[in-house]
């Protein structure tokens, strides 16, 4: 079955709560993809924490210092586990938003905003308090920053 540009537009307009001026499903798809990468990264770090394994860090020397710092746990729970929950929530919201659930897009923007602020705080800790960087944490930071950029792009599209 062929898919014409016209049929694409019609499909978009048929989705409940979705407007053509808002973020496109493509942006939400990219956000879902990015948050899944963040989810895998966080799960890996959580498992390392739970099983007491050494984290394989052969690129940057600071992983041990960062992951053994008091900032790696919050209320006795690995920060990576909290990150995994956040990434899964973002993934779910992005998928729902891509299918036209407007409220999911709003929740996603709020969560990504909070994650961005947390990321800035964690980058500050690595740079100025611990004075070491961990490659897995930098991957997570990059993912969150990209998610924030996509949220911003979506917001610009909506406000046009």
């Amino acid at each position, binding site marked *: 079955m062929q898919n014409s540009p016209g049929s694409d537009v019609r499909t978009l307009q048929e989705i409940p709560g979705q407007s053509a001026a808002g973020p496109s499903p493509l942006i939400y798809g990219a956000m879902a993809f990015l948050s899944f990468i963040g989810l895998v990264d966080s799960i890996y770090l959580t*498992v390392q924490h739970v099983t007491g394994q050494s984290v394989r860090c052969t690129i940057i020397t600071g992983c041990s210092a960062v992951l053994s710092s008091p900032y790696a746990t919050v209320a006795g729970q690995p920060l990576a586990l909290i990150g995994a929950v956040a990434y899964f929530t973002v993934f779910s919201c992005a998928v729902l938003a891509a*299918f036209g659930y407007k409220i999911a897009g709003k929740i996603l923007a709020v969560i990504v905003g909070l994650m961005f602020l947390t990321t800035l705080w964690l980058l500050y800790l690595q740079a100025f308090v611990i004075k070491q960087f961990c490659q897995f944490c930098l991957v997570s930071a990059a993912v969150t920053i990209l998610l924030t950029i996509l949220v911003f792009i979506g917001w610009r599209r909506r406000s046009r």
Partner: protein
Amino acid sequence: MRRFLPFIIIIVALLAALGGFLYFKSRATSSTSGVSSTTMPTPAPTAQAGQPQISTPPVVSTNEPGATPPHAIGPASAPVTLEEFGDFQCPPCGFLHPELKKIANTYGPKVRIIFREFPLTPSHPHALTAARAAEAAGMQGKFWEMHGMIFENQRTWHSAFDARPVFEEYARAIGLNIDRYKRDVASPAVAERIFLDQKRAHALNVTGTPTVFINGKEVPFDSLPAERLGSLIDAELARIGR
């Protein structure tokens, strides 16, 4: 169908995440036996005690040399080299410490014992601090003195909120220049030595502590008590003809 598709995708992602968790976990636990257990293993009963046990595991090698020169007891010309990848906060490593002292006393110049840093963080929050303290002592030629102090008093500092003052006390006790020690603990040179040892560990596929190699062959975890290690070393000496 389209109505349910997002929920199906989310459920599939959730299952994939759980599967990933179990996969990473099984890989982590199957690659290392006995890591982070609280006791040394009891030697496995064997009907062929004294028989060469070490001929089975293959010799592993890597181009990663680790920190150079390594911290070693025994001459470089010793026919048997025992290389330990250890974590100062790991209880089995603490139990291995007196076993290796027995080996050093029994075999003297026939065995060279090398200690490599492999701090298991974040599960052992003081492991890296301890490794830095030992390496800083090494900068003043007293690595083994600090190594002994840290392992022999592991229970004292294990649950301390901040282990650094404890290690400073040990530094004073073994007669280090304390100002230099404080500088060295945070120095890039010390961080680099730990990093190089970790790189060697990863290259040798070491994932837990204590991991011991005898002439490049990994020793099973249940063979780490001195009597078992002794029989492995004897077998290796016999194989070499020394």
